[in-house]
């Protein structure tokens, strides 16, 4: 139990002093925690756009907090503003509009959607032209400066940098479904380098539109259990048939332990370690032997200076796709060995759905809340667990248990894998 401000490798210890979250289960930590521990689902039938003809018609869309006409990057910005405001308020750091550190935002690429494309298409200037020739002509003739600002690739991070007054150039990043975890990792690394005493790490994704649904359907990645939206996301179950897309955002305020203690901040948890390993096998599948994700988990434990016995529970990637859940089990069995039998593992995605770019940040936030409350949220919809997945998945009911350390997994398409480890303070 060291009170030093440096970790086992002599690096500044990184702590979390603010958490904010918005998901399909609600707005803010309190509402999310209440619904997570009650085992509720935030998945509904999609009403944002017509779903006629789509194989998947369900999602965890967050729409109660906006009456604006839907625009994907603007929605991602709004969700991020909500989670970041909550986190910064809790951390009570900096001053309004002036956060004393850099910004790392995990988000989906900002793309013009059909709504914007057709708005531009309908203008007069290029009406005798076709396709993009027409769009370019109309873009040049009209005033689309608002689109210019929103659809630059860096626009989400840039808007947030303005809103929260973070320092320097914001980093807008993607590692697909591991993105949110990567944002925490980048913030941790910057503090460990001594570049900054604080970092604002955000994952945000509000990008569900018809084309996204079709794209993921083409990869056969989504559940098509449209008749039972709340039962569709069933990680580790025998009948799981894909993930359920969802929206949300979470923010962590990271600080060096020394700086947080010096200003008397309440410490919500410690970022103990992070591990990463890219896969070379396939664009949407892990190596059959799981070696990349095993390595990623092993490296996180090494970075944290921990062994499998130190991990009290695991916040799973647990997407509910046949492939992921099988591979995650295989990798955990290899990386944790016999200890896995004593380590409960739960998937928040059973309730929230898969928030893609935000998932790693949301699950990091919930991991820290798990430590704070001593309660593990359940994996719901676990009626018949996959007999080949021999783990304690905390089925259907929350579990009250002292938790000092949580491992959180995130594995992305494109083979980008991140594992984070959080623990209580002090250690």
């Amino acid at each position, binding site marked *: 139990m060291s009170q030093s401000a440096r970790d086992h490798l002599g690096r500044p210890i990184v702590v979390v002093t603010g958490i904010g979250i918005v998901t399909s289960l609600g707005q803010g930590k309190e509402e999310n925690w209440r619904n997570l521990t009650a085992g509720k689902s935030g998945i509904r039938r999609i009403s944002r756009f017509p779903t006629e003809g789509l194989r998947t018609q369900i999602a965890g869309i967050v729409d109660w907090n906006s009456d604006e006409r839907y625009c994907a990057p603007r929605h991602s910005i709004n969700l991020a503003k909500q989670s970041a405001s909550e986190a910064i308020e809790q951390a009570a750091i900096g001053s309004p509009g002036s956060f004393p550190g850099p910004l790392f935002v995990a988000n989906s690429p900002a793309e*013009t959607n059909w709504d914007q494309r057709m708005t*531009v298409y309908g203008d007069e200037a290029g009406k005798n032209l076709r396709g993009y020739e027409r769009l370019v002509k109309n873009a040049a003739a009209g005033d689309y400066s608002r689109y210019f600002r929103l659809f630059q690739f*860096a626009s989400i991070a840039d808007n947030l940098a303005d809103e929260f007054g973070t320092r320097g*150039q914001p980093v807008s990043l993607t590692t697909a479904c591991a993105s949110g975890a990567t944002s925490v990792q980048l913030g941790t690394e910057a503090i460990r380098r001594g570049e900054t005493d604080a970092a604002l790490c955000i994952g945000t994704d509000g990008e569900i539109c*018809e084309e996204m649904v079709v*794209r993921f359907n083409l990869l056969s990645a989504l559940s098509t259990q449209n008749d039972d939206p709340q039962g569709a996301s069933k990680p580790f179950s025998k009948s799981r048939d894909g993930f359920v897309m969802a929206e949300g955002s979470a923010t962590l305020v990271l600080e060096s332990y020394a700086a947080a203690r010096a200003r008397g901040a309440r410490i919500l948890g410690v970022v103990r370690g992070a591990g990463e390993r890219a896969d070379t096998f396939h664009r949407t599948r892990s190596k059959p032997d799981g070696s*990349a994700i095993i390595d990623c988990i092993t490296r996180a434990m090494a970075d944290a200076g921990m062994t499998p016995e130190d991990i009290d529970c695991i916040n799973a990637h647990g997407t509910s796709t046949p492939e992921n859940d099988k591979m995650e089990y295989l990798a955990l069995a290899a990386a944790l060995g016999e200890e896995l039998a004593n380590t409960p593992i739960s998937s928040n995605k059973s309730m929230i759905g898969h928030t893609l770019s935000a998932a790693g940040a949301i699950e990091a936030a919930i991991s820290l809340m798990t430590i704070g409350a001593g309660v593990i949220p359940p994996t719901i919809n676990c009626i018949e667990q996959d007999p080949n997945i021999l783990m304690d998945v905390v089925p259907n009911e929350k579990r009250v248990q002292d938790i000092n350390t949580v491992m959180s997994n995130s594995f992305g398409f*494109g*083979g*980008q894998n991140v594992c984070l480890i959080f623990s209580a303070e002090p250690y």
Partner: protein
Amino acid sequence: MPPLGDSMSNKQSEVWITGIGLVSSLGEGLDDHWSQMASGKTPAPSVDTEDQAPYPVHPIVDFDFAAQIPKRSDQRQMGKWQHLGTYAAGLALDDAGISNNPDLLAATNMIVAAGGGERDLEVDADIMEKIAGVDEYGPILNEALNTELRPTLFLAQLSNLMAGNISIVHGVTDSSRTFMGEESAGVTALQTAAAQIRHGQGDIFLVGGAYIAERADMTMLMEFGHTLWQGEHDSVWSRKDTDGGMIMGSAGVFLILESRQHAESRGVKPYARVDGIVSDRCTRQPGAAREVADKLFDQLNSQIPGGTLPVLSGCCGVQPQLVEEYEFLANLRERGIEPAVRGLTTILGNTLEAQLPLSFALASLAISRGRFFDPFDKTGFETAFSGIPEHILLSTWGHWRGECLALIGKPDVPLREGE
């Protein structure tokens, strides 16, 4: 607090550039670029005025992507943008002697500066035609998307799949991050990699990006902001007294950044040393970007000797940044520095995410050949430099956001004390 950045301190590991993979509108490889850019005459840019008319662009040269992406199954999973990046990454790995060394590949970290992947613009055109004028086009759109989109196309659209493809094709498997967003993605990618090396968070990094100018969806995006130059190609400094505008360029550029110790232990010689990358942002009120650049220069100043300083500018051409960057560079004289500026965008265009990596590659080339480039334009702003460049200042300001200065040094010139 000073702006964030990666600047040199003598206690930390030196960052060397030990590998370069380069394809642009001028050609492929360092020799090809050197012969055109240091031939004693003004280099002739390659310009296409038809593909995106009325906007001139610098088209990417033909490159034999199969030479770096041998499997057809891999080739089919990518569009041209991912081909270009994966190809250039392969060239950089070959150049640094990392390819075919599994242990080294497994220890190589990657940061890709990415834009959006590619859409099938013909499919978009068909769908737009189909749904135009229909009030509630949702169901028709769904049906069209269901029939027209292909799975491989979606993967080609994902920004992080350039990194994914580089891992799959070349076997780079340590950390993998993709930073998004125009010029600043290239800036933060290089800055992060250099800072990680200096602080022992990795010994060797593959960093870079790609951009292809011949993309109407990108032309549309840039014209939402009325940022493009129309008509005949002109040098970037000649556009100074006009309303300005960008000419987009094409490039795939990857660099190997490596700690000096790591490079020496495997007997590798550097092209150049990274002596600092500093950046910040402002909301581009008049004069603000120049003010930021002045502050950034102060941060690098301790490593910059007086006298004539070669400068490679990625000046984008959009006003008022064009005038502000011009004035910033011209006013270096007030600091006792005579800038020998080369407006890289005059001959290669703005390559967005690839812009700073491209500047890094060409500055490293000049340092390693012991000579700076001949002037790229005839306005007289670009003055001759006949000495051996020991430092080259890189100035890369985003067309919309983000200002960056970087300093590339000759590896055998000692770092200056006094930080």
